[in-house]
């Protein structure tokens, strides 16, 4: 493994499969009466969250604790960031206390890359702005593989706010590498220009994108990142792009419906679909812990030759 996991590009094909296979073994630990193994005893992991997060932070923390790491959470609301400290200074301050890993969530794309250059600690990107969220994509791939036994050759429809979505980027990079046929759909204002260049087919015709899909992945409308009027109203968005029971019927009969959460019910997804028989949304949450345990375990090993160069520079 490289020193850090900042994006899907940091993983080789072998390493992607190793994460997914290891997560398979990690899942069993969560089913034991004592859900803990001593593997990361004595390792310190800092969870540094500059953005609100419930499921990702909780998921990382549970994963860390199940591996017996010492964890501490820094929520920005209670840290010296509010007193004006820069990200680089925070990184150097944390670095001085020598944690083994730092899990970073930040509103700016590339924030974790800056930290990775400064810190000897291994950095895991838990979401940087509109850029990447690699562990989410890994848990999505894991969930797909669990249901379909493969990713290769599947038609995967991703629908929603494509523009602001780091989940989309990481998923497209990962799922296309695993051989999936990825289609995306959303309002024209929320489709980044040139998105076809990362290997997907884009269309505003959501019914066409969903037709015959093996997997439908919904993306949240990220109102907190929207500073303009991207569509007339949430009600109209739901009417045109929302995932309804009727729309799901266009997909394969054994389609699975995914959502990285948090969901806006009645905006991108109807409650009947979110709670319906095709939904694997809560499985995604459960699998998140196993996949993050796998990533933490594999990153705790040695650094590949040459992978330290960036940190030393």
């Amino acid at each position: 493994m490289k020193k850090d996991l900042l994006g899907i590009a940091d993983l080789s094909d072998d390493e992607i499969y190793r994460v997914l296979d290891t997560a398979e073994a990690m899942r069993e630990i969560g089913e034991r009466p004592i859900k803990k193994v001593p593997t990361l005893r004595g390792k310190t992991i800092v969870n540094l969250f500059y953005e609100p997060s419930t499921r990702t932070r909780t998921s990382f923390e549970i994963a860390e604790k199940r591996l017996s790491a010492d964890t501490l959470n820094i929520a920005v609301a209670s840290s010296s960031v509010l007193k004006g400290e820069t990200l680089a200074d925070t990184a150097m301050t944390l670095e001085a206390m020598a944690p083994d890993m730092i899990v970073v969530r930040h509103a700016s794309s590339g924030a974790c890359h800056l930290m990775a250059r400064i810190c000897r600690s291994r950095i895991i990107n838990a979401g940087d702005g509109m850029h990447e969220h690699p562990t989410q994509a890994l848990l999505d791939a894991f969930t797909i593989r669990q249901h379909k036994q493969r990713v290769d050759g599947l038609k995967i429809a991703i629908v929603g706010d494509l523009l602001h979505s780091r989940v989309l980027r990481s998923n497209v990079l990962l799922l296309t590498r695993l051989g999936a046929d990825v289609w995306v759909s959303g309002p024209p204002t929320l489709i980044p220009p040139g998105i076809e260049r990362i290997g997907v087919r884009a269309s505003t015709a959501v019914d066409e994108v969903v037709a015959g899909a093996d997997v439908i992945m919904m993306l949240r409308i990220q109102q907190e990142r929207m500073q303009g009027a991207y569509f007339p109203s949430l009600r109209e968005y739901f009417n045109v792009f929302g995932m309804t029971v009727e729309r799901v019927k266009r997909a394969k009969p054994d389609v699975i419906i995914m959502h990285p959460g948090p969901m806006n019910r009645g905006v991108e997804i109807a409650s009947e679909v979110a709670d319906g028989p095709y939904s694997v949304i809560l499985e995604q949450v459960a699998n998140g812990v196993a996949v993050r345990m796998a990533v933490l375990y594999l990153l705790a090993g040695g650094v590949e030759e040459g992978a330290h160069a960036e940190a030393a520079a």
Partner: protein
Amino acid sequence: MDADRIGRSLARIAHEILERNRGVEELALVGIRTRGVPLARRLAASIRDITHHDVPTGALDITLYRDDLMRHAVGTQPVVRSTDIPFSIDDRRILLVDDVLYTGRTVRAALDALIEFGRPRAIQLVVLVDRGHRELPIKADYVGKNLPTSMSQSVQVHLTEIDGRDEVEIE
């Protein structure tokens, strides 16, 4: 050791297990991955042939309990495989099965892993080969064969289920 000797050793061990434990009551087999697992299954089959009783059988992966995991963090982490113990180990007599007993460190890790699943009445150790050179105070209860070796040698156990043939080699 060839296939015949391996078969005879396992058959003898199955009888010893039944004699020592006075039957199959409360017994369960747990094989240590990788090659302890098919050995545990074979012992379960032998015990079934003798007693017409099924003994619950599980598989244990000790990777996450190894004492050398984070000490020399170079290269790739060892592969973690699934542990599968589909029964409660509480108050059972657990027969822990592995192919080769050497330093004893694997067994130490397996004991740590096993007691996280409950509180067995007893844990007994079954190995196909004991090659000596213990680094921990650990002793097997049932041994297929004692093989005196030097530390520079390596003992390879091949089993049909995994390697396509039954054989124990010293290299």
